[in-house]
């Protein structure tokens, strides 16, 4: 058995033990971060709608992410062929979808990127930030409209 538990430096949680066999692999990185191929998702506490997508290699690379469907009920897009190919998607149930959040002060001014959702294949752990080619969704969709 290979020990896949490793302690990593993180941006928001100091040092954290993670199971690298549960890490997510971005074969092409993310736009602007093409060399960052391995991430883990860290919770930020009970009941928060946010999670952290943390690079396992660089502590400073940590994105706040959220479930876009909780913010936009009718969010819906087509997965393009290169993405189906890269992630080896066979059915929609293979996928988890998250959006990268830009946190602002006050929190209700924060935005979520609906134009480039993060797709995660929950079985093979491959992931990609897929850019939608249409203009139906914004890169900075306000999250604040929803009362919470």
């Amino acid at each position, binding site marked *: 058995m290979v020990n896949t538990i490793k302690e990593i430096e993180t*941006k*928001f*949680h100091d040092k954290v033990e993670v199971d690298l066999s549960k890490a997510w692999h971005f074969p092409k990185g*993310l*736009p*602007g*971060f093409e060399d960052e191929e391995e991430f883990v998702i860290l919770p*930020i*506490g009970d009941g*928060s709608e946010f999670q952290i997508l943390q690079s396992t290699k660089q502590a*400073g*690379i*940590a*994105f*706040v992410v959220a479930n876009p469907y909780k913010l936009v009920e009718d969010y819906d897009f087509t997965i*393009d*062929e*290169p993405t189906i*190919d*890269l992630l080896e998607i066979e059915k929609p149930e293979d996928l988890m979808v998250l959006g*990268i*959040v*830009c*946190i602002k002060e006050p*929190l209700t001014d924060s935005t979520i*990127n609906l*134009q*480039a959702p993060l797709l995660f294949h929950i079985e093979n752990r491959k992931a990609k*930030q897929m*850019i939608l*080619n249409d203009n139906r969704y914004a*890169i*900075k969709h306000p999250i604040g409209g929803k009362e919470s």
Partner: protein
Amino acid sequence: MLVLSRKAGETIKIADNIEVKILEVKGDTIRIGIEAPKSVDIVRGELVQSITESNAESLTLDVNWLSTLKGKE
């Protein structure tokens, strides 16, 4: 950078499996058709740039943000 002049209806072949075709030239807009293998990502350049900038902006969040957030709860 390789620079080629093309007219409407003409094409450019890239490697043996990508073809770019100039469909129409109208004023300052050129319509282009691209045929490529399904594994090739094709996205508008400015859009990739905007996503890159938005990703970078998301990273500028202060390291103490989490404790600030928890302090408010």
